[in-house]
């Protein structure tokens, strides 16, 4: 008890010093929350003191709040209607609901604002949705002024299937407290909870006291400044963190906590990795440790040093996979199964990806509702590169004998076979469905950036990414901001690239559609006297070959192309084409036969949906196809023979 108080005093003294010394963001908001978990009733009881600074130049008369646990309040909320009660393959428990009620809301002066509190539906007008509420102020907040509100709330947690909730005695608390929207360009940006969307909020400081029964192990955003046992068998943990825009925590008696320092010399990083691994997954813990180290190293070296003092990995309990694979500031959930073999790299990929969101979402806090590619796409691009670096490009996801698959292939697979419904940039809830949202904002955007890297070169692209991170960390960039940075660093005009890849639902596909090489025929019939000279450029009959290569723009997107043509004597000819017309024919008269032609011979266009048709040859070998046909027949034979014994 005594030691706990000393700890609190030291922390209180240290807190303001550190926050005053190193302000990385503009800290629009401040939250001081006390919350108590009732694990039996699956309930939360909380009191929050929220401060908000008006950084605009206009008077503000209303404040909107996210009440995201109300997404689980009934079967007709916007989230339930859009998702059908299913998220990433996990279904909700039919008899279980979750909600958050505001008991009171008042100013620090004691003015009760409960009567001016009401739900609003800015996105779809759905009367059954109560995920956004608004309070009307009796006195407007002038520019530069800060308002403080005191909110008391009570929440019931749903059985987890979409990020937040409980499973047995595992609790994941994300989007759990009343959180104010973002005032941008004089307009509030505060969206309802949608099936295909994540979140958006302002940076600030958080101080959260979490009270749970003492048997629970707790992990939370930020650093722990105190841990105080109470007389009623509970313990209160206090966490603080500045320069973040959200706060999440998890609690479970079956967590086993591991801590490890991560130190990097260049760039300088010194952070504490905290792992809360569920007891049933302990055999998988090394995979978490290793991949988080890799994530810290890769992102710090590629974009900028990880600036926070802690990073916490939460391993959801068995049965709580719906909470897995989700990012929060300085904390994320990964996922694994106790029996998952090392050759299937799901926990590695999820750990690297979710840690990476600490950069693309956590620090570079783009609007996940409106331009989700800025966090998911950029992060998937980073993930593909990190996975390739640490596990090998062709086997980073699956590494079985005879069956290997890389992360890039996984990303391509969803794009190659996809329809053409949506562009990458679109409000998350306006995509035709969850599949279209995922393939566009994750995979297609990642492939676009990988293509851009090939066009600009790795070094220039690294400069683009570093500059973008450095310039926009702790701010809210938009797509235009990324494009401007890319143009500035590369010195190239890239609107054409981004207009197509981000704003058009179409595809990129160039092909060699025709290839011929025939001996020039001798002239037969009659010809005028003057024509002989004119025909000098048509080759020697019977000696020269007339070779034709037809390149076809099979997709809708237009990109300049290079074409490599190879002749029988080994000579290679490189051609260029602006790629605008539907097709372009190249004709050659040479004493040797044409062998093959390849469009995009350097493999720049990762976005090209069909790599096989990029090349064509006149005399293809038969052995490879025979190999595959015989191989398939062999597998069929053995499967059939299983029937007999």
């Amino acid at each position, binding site marked *: 008890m005594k030691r706990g108080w000393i700890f609190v005093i030291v922390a209180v003294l240290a807190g303001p010093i550190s926050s005053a010394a190193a302000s990385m963001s503009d800290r629009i908001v401040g939250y001081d929350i006390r919350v108590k978990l009732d694990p039996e009733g699956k309930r939360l009881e909380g009191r929050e003191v929220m401060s908000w600074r008006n950084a605009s130049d206009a008077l503000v008369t209303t404040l909107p709040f996210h009440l995201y646990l109300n997404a689980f309040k009934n079967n007709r909320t916007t989230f339930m209607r859009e998702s059908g009660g299913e998220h990433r393959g996990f279904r909700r428990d039919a008899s279980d609901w979750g909600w958050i009620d505001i008991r009171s809301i008042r100013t620090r002066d004691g003015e009760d604002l409960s009567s001016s509190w009401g739900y609003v539906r800015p996105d779809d007008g759905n009367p059954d949705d109560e995920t956004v509420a608004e309070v009307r102020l009796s006195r407007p907040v002038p520019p530069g002024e800060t308002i403080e509100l005191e909110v008391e709330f009570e929440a019931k947690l749903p059985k987890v299937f979409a990020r937040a909730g409980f*499973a*047995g005695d595992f609790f994941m608390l994300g989007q759990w407290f009343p959180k104010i929207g973002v005032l941008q360009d004089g307009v509030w940006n505060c969206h309802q909870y949608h099936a295909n969307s994540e979140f958006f909020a302002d940076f600030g400081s958080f101080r959260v006291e979490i009270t749970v029964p003492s048997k629970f192990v707790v992990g939370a955003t930020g650093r722990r400044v105190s841990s105080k046992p109470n007389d009623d068998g509970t313990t209160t943990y206090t966490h603080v963190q500045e320069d973040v825009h959200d706060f999440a925590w998890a609690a479970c008696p*079956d967590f086993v906590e591991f801590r490890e320092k991560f130190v990097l010399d260049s760039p300088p990083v010194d952070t504490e990795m905290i792992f809360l691994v*569920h007891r*049933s*997954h302990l055999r998988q813990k090394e995979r978490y440790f290793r991949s988080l180290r890799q994530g810290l190293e890769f992102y710090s070296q590629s974009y900028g040093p990880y600036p926070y003092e802690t990073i916490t990995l939460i391993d959801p*309990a*068995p*049965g709580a996979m719906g909470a897995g694979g989700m990012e929060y500031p300085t904390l994320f959930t990964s996922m694994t*199964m*106790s*029996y998952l073999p090392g050759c299937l790299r799901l926990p590695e990929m999820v750990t690297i990806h979710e840690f990476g969101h600490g950069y693309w979402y956590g620090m570079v806090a783009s609007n996940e509702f409106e331009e989700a590619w800025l966090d998911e796409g950029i992060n998937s691009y980073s993930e593909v590169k990190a996975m390739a670096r640490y596990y090998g490009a*062709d086997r980073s996801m699956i590494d079985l*004998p*005879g*069956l*290997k*698959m890389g992360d890039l*292939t996984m990303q*391509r*697979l969803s794009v*190659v*076979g996809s329809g053409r419904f949506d562009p990458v940039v679109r409000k998350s809830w306006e995509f035709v469905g969850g599949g279209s949202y995922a393939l566009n904002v994750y995979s297609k955007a990642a492939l676009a950036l990988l293509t851009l890297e090939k066009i600009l070169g790795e070094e220039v692209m690294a400069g683009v990414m570093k500059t973008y991170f450095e310039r926009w960390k702790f701010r809210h960039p938009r797509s235009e901001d990324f494009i401007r940075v890319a143009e500035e660093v590369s010195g190239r005009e890239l609107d054409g690239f981004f207009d197509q890849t981000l704003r058009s639902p179409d595809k990129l596909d160039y092909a060699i559609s025709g*290839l011929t090489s025939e001996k020039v025929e001798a002239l037969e019939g009659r010809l005028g006297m003057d024509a002989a000279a004119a025909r000098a450029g048509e080759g020697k009959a019977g000696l020269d070959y007339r070779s034709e290569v037809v390149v076809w723009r099979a997709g809708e997107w237009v990109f300049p192309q290079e074409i490599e043509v190879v002749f029988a004597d080994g000579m290679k000819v490189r051609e260029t084409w602006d790629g605008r017309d539907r097709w372009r024919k190249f004709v050659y008269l040479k004493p040797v036969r044409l062998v093959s032609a*390849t469009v995009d011979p350097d493999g720049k266009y990762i976005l090209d*949906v*069909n*790599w*096989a*048709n*990029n*090349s*064509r*040859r*006149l005399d*293809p*070998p038969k*052995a*490879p*196809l*025979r*190999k*595959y*046909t*015989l*191989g*398939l*027949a*062999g*597998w*069929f*034979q*053995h*499967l*059939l*023979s*299983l*029937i*007999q*014994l």
Partner: protein
Amino acid sequence: MTIGKCYGRGFKAAAARPVVVVLLWLFNLILAAVAADALASPLDAYFGRSLTLDGLMASFDFNTLQEFLAADTAVAGDVARAFLLAVIAYLLAWPFFQGGILNSLLPGTGRTERKAASFFGGGGRFYGRFFRLEVLSLVLWIPAGFLFLFLSLLLDFTATNPNAEYLRFLLVIAKIGIALLIYNVVRMILDYARIGIAVYDTRRVFEGLLDATRFVLGRLGRTFALFYLFALTALPFLAGYVALRLHFPQTTAGRVAVVFFLGQVSILVRGLIRVACQAGQMEFLRSFEAAQDPGGKGDHGLEEVENRADRYPEELERQEKEPNNRIEEKGEQGQGPADHEQNEP
């Protein structure tokens, strides 16, 4: 007779019937070729003239193959449908081949037993009965399904803690093991039913099924031991083939041919094991019939059929009316398929 002896005699009998083994292999090859052919055309259309073919030859590039399947999703469906049709054709034809195998194993058919005529003759002769047996086997499959569900539920009770993830994983493995065990018991019963039907040339299929059920369940340990002895013999050949496909790089036409050839050897061996298994089970069944009939004079002769006249009177009557019936060509007493081979001129 000991299990080991039945096992040995089974192989001896199978080795003496290469035509049967080759026919099984040929049938397997034809059906698999039809299924594989469904993939050959779209593969050719997609990769046929592309330089990416070189990459496919250099190594097994699953990434590229995946792209091919993703680009043309209809192909995956075509291949799956072709394979499903091949499986259905195989299942429909299998009673014919069972009849052929058993007929060629039965003594008393003279030299023809080694020849294709005996195989096809037996296939046609028993097809109707064996097909009926497959339909009637529902009386076993349905209770077997319930038994599996019951055992699964029992296992589930041992892992009610949702956090015991690894235990539940082990239980899934255990359930697969139980399912295989039950599946193989039913298959064994059907094997012995077919043998009984062929040996006694009876059309009373359902009674044959009941007899076989009593026989197998009455000596479950030994029938199982014999069955798994053959199954385990087949396992290394399958494992060897899989290892070969995974670890032997097929980077040249010659290497592709070697793998395909060794694959065919593996299929041939497994056909041989299937014939050996049937022969071994026949030996095993006969040894019990002989023990229950100490005064009997033969295993497949007229005398034995007479002893069974109380059970199969119609069959006996029919057989006596048919002068060319196989049972008039008596085998030597106490001899099974393997012994019979030895005594042939």
